[in-house]
């Protein structure tokens, strides 16, 4: 559990640093932080096997770090640098790490559900024993993609868990103001699918529940909805102060039940000393600082490789007649087709 505590702390410290770097204008675009949701990220990922697959929405830093993607690769991606996990092409919302089975952070609410369903379909077609965790926020359950994906997953008995991270607000709209059935896990019943709710700030409960549902998915090809109740301390994104739709008291009250504090006190009960925890603090701070240093040192992507990855190798030949001299038919830019020098 010490290792998991360290991962949770890594996410918290990383996110705090990301916010600082965003405000220093080293990170651009949107930046959605996972602070407060660490037990869900770490617990769910801990319950996964190494070869299980993960897909998330755009609040993705915590899941990538929990899955083992290096803080260096994530921070470099946030900085838009060549050594980022998507080589500076994706940014905060589009982290990935296919070596660890992480098939992306996706930016359109609900859009990742159909394709995660397709990953599960491919696993079945390939007779592989893995399962898919598809993370989504509480706002995504009101999208049509949710309905279509759950129906297909149940109809075809696909090994997939739809993990609804219910942090109470879709941007600034509370679950009660958005969902006619605010107990989101109950919606699974419409598809004769198992649905379950867990305290997403209780690390042990998250692990136990996720592991049980993953086993069902893998062994019996039973998909499920798992709703993790948690809370985000920061706004929807760094640009949102997060106070227009909730009170400071509410945030303070939630912080009394902080997943890190809870896990730390469990560790102390189990015999961990202040020095043990301090040592973890120290290590995590150093790791995050190393990630910032790494990101700063990583070169920017090569402008000549602007179209890198857009089409597969060999496609430049197909595009050769679109505009001679230009790899993919564009008017002004010439691409070398390489990732960079």
């Amino acid at each position: 559990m010490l290792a998991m505590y360290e991962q949770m702390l890594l996410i918290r410290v990383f996110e705090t640093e990301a916010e600082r770097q965003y405000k220093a204008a080293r990170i651009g675009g949107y930046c959605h932080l996972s602070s407060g949701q660490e037990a869900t990220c770490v617990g769910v990922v801990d319950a996964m096997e190494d070869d299980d697959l993960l897909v998330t929405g755009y609040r993705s830093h915590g899941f990538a770090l929990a899955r083992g993607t290096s803080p260096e690769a994530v921070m470099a991606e946030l900085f838009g640098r060549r050594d980022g996990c998507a080589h500076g092409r994706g940014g905060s919302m589009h982290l990935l790490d296919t070596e660890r089975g992480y098939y992306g952070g996706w930016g359109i609410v609900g859009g990742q559900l159909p394709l995660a369903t397709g990953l599960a379909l491919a696993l079945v077609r390939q007779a592989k024993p893995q399962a898919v965790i598809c993370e989504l926020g509480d706002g995504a359950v009101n999208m049509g993609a949710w309905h279509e994906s759950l129906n297909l997953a149940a109809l075809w008995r696909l090994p997939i868990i739809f993990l609804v991270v219910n942090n109470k607000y879709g941007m600034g709209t509370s679950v009660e103001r958005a969902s006619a059935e605010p107990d989101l896990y109950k919606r699974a019943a419409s598809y004769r699918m198992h649905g379950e709710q867990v305290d997403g700030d209780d690390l042990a409960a998250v692990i136990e529940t996720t592991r049980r549902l993953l086993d069902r998915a893998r062994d019996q090809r039973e998909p499920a909805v798992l709703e993790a109740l948690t809370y985000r301390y920061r706004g929807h994104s760094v640009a949102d102060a997060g106070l227009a739709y909730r009170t400071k008291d509410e945030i303070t009250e939630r912080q009394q039940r902080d997943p890190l504090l809870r896990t730390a006190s469990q560790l102390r009960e189990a015999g961990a000393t202040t020095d043990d925890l301090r040592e973890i603090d120290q290590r995590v701070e150093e790791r995050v600082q190393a990630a910032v240093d790494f990101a700063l040192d990583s070169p920017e992507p090569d402008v000549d490789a602007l179209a890198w990855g857009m089409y597969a190798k060999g496609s430049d030949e197909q595009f050769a007649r679109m505009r001679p001299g230009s790899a993919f038919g564009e008017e002004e830019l010439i691409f070398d087709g390489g990732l960079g020098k």
Partner: protein
Amino acid sequence: MTVVTPDEQAQAVERMTYREALRLALREELARDERVFIMGEEVGVFEGSYKVTAGLMAEFGADRVRDTPISEEGFVGAGVGAAMLGERPVVEIMTLNFLLVAMDQVVNHAAKIGAMFGGEVRCPMVIRTPNGAGNQLTAQHSQSFDGWFAGTPGLKVVTPSNPADAKGLLKAAIRDEDPVLVIENLPIYKEKGDVPLDPGFITPIGRAAVARQGSDVTIVSHSFATVRALHVAGQLAEEGIDAEVVDLRSLRPLDMETVAASVAKTNRALCVEEGWPSYGVTAELAARISKACFDDLDAPVERVGMAEVPLPYAKNLETAAMPNEDRIAAAVRSVLG
């Protein structure tokens, strides 16, 4: 008994409909590669809304010819995800009109995967679907959005106009490593032509064809507009007008070299499409021809497309709105001055 040499076998052709050519391509690719599977509404038990997949479920089973509920966003997305794990899904959409409800999966997801993830994961999927008008299917079922998709970096779009290309381009699309939209056409399904039987035959993506040689004017077209253009060219020949027809075959990548070479020869260009011309395929062509062939042109580039209205039901109104042969012939005469 006739003895057929391997060479003759490789060159053998059979006359068949566009629909049968598509089916042959699917059957050959299903047999060639275990990763290939078909998914869509009514593709299996019903044997295809337009019977393109007839017999394939019986031959390859319900796993490889997979019926879906009416959930375009869901199963197009399922195709995207399966492709990301190395499968070769061929997703059938009943008509292009219905692809609009899956637009998010096509444009925001499939088209983005290669570039947005820095080349770390690919999406080798095919979506095939017919567009077109002319059967009084009215406003919601008679549209052609080829240009929308062809204008999206990350996608490839092919639009076969004859049975041989239907087979060759569909096979090329299935073997491609990127998401390819194969736009078919309802009126062409019954058109007949010679189709190579060689299972290795493909039509390369990104290569236009000169479908008819001529010297007076170039008609640039794709899909069913090419069928119309060839017909018009045949009629105009009787008037002594010698029109060349360039069949684009691929919209993205676009073979501008072949178009420009033809216009350099004829000095006049008419672009024809089934869809609305504003901001459409012919708009793109006119801009590119005007730039690439500025010194060659003896007249402004002309365009013909669907009248810019939601297509009405009444037969006479529908006919008037279509890029019919009378309008194409009139435009040819206009561009010839």
